[in-house]
């Protein structure tokens, strides 16, 4: 990237000022949410501090705007960073590494690269054609759907940064482990034959390929993506927080510790198997996760459940079927499920 192209123009400066002002407003509102919630519940609505309903209402008035603000702010930041990620360059970097380091890098890049499942086929073919080993390609394809920005932000907001980082670490671990195993199985012949036959035309010389984006365009794109994502999930989030508050109050403590606690060895595989046919978005699954944790389920088991729900989805498998023969699809599902189980145990052990 050339620095000259990053130098802000006058339009860029204007958008920097707008973003800056919004950021300051965000910080002011965010840091005053508790006093505002207190004022609304106890002064404006005149609930007493001992009242149960008042407590619940206060919790709701505080939590909903907090999560929505966090979601908008963080998603904006994440999507802004993502405008700098060039998949072609990532492919070029990964191409030079062998297995091992290649798997790790592919997995890390997969975690930060967004793509909708309709892109998994072109990505797969593009990677295979560049001569990237099948296992490394899978590391990329597996980590990407597991790492979901909404899930990351919700975990951050509801459980703190330790859990959010744990989620990130386990997503990358699953990608690396699954990719390494799949790479060792010599499955190249299980890829549909035409994949190797397609010849990419490549870029013709003398023609501008991707134009560099200005800061204004990056901000616009980040704002557009944020609007799109938040408008898709906000309702789930509010309902989820509501359900979470309900479960919090009515299901007895430790109700789940015997079934989903760290002591029950079989709980991790069962959670993963349950998660495979379930297909949900992260926004819908986190409130359940939050409720399960509250009631004594072990962190590793819960994370395993969540990942199996988001990582292995039927629509994605149907799309991948275009390039992978059925046996490889089955192996793929098996290996990913296995690594999720492994990671679940790992985290139950260390926490």
């Amino acid at each position, binding site marked *: 990237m050339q620095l000259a192209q990053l130098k802000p123009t006058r339009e860029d400066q204007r958008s920097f000022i707008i973003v800056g002002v919004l950021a300051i407003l965000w910080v002011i509102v965010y840091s005053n949410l508790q006093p505002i919630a207190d004022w609304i519940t106890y002064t404006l609505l005149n609930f007493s501090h001992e009242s149960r309903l008042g407590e619940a209402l206060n919790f709701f008035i505080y939590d909903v705007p907090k999560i929505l603000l966090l979601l908008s702010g963080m998603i904006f930041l994440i999507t802004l960073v993502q*405008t700098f990620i060039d*998949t*072609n360059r990532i*492919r070029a970097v990964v191409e030079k590494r062998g297995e091992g380091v290649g798997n790790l890098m592919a997995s890390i890049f997969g975690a930060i690269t967004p*793509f*909708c*499942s*309709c*892109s998994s*086929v*072109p*990505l797969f*073919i*593009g990677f295979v*054609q560049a001569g990237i080993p099948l296992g490394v390609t899978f590391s990329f394809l597996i980590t990407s759907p597991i790492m979901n920005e909404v899930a990351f932000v919700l975990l951050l907001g509801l459980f703190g940064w330790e859990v959010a980082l744990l989620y990130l670490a386990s997503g990358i671990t699953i990608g690396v482990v699954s990719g390494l195993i799949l790479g060792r199985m010599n499955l190249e012949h299980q890829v549909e034959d035409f994949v190797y036959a*397609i010849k*990419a*035309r*490549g*870029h*013709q010389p003398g*023609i*501008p*390929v*991707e*134009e560099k984006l200005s800061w204004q*365009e990056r901000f*616009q*794109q980040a704002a*557009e993506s944020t609007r*799109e994502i938040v408008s898709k999930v906000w309702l789930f989030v509010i309902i989820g927080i509501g359900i979470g508050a309900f479960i919090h109050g009515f299901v007895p403590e430790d109700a789940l510790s015997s079934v989903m606690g760290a002591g029950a060895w079989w709980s991790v595989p069962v959670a993963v198997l349950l998660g495979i046919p379930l297909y949900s978005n992260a926004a819908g699954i986190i409130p359940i996760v939050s409720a399960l944790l509250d009631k004594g389920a072990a962190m590793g088991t819960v994370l395993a459940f969540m990942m199996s729900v988001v990582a292995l989805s039927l629509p994605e498998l149907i799309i991948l079927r*275009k390039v992978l023969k059925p046996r490889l699809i089955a192996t793929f599902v098996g290996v990913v499920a296995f690594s999720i189980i492994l990671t679940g145990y790992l985290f139950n052990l260390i926490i």
Partner: protein
Amino acid sequence: MLVVKILGANCPKCRRLEQEVHDCLNELEIDCEIVKLDDFTDFMQYGILKLPGLVMNDVLLSTGRVPSRSQIIAWVAQMQSPEHI
């Protein structure tokens, strides 16, 4: 004549690009042909990794994002300039 190709599937971003391009070219009232390609052999032909892709007169201009309207208009103007005809 300007030939615009939109390479994409049925995802929200792909549909948004299609809509945007249609709106832009309608507004500009340019004689052009808009083609929607959704087969992955087409994607591969242009070396696209992320959908949607935008191609004008066989030049790949963007992938994985929906370019701004002003950017699309600038590209159209560039394609209409003498050296591209």
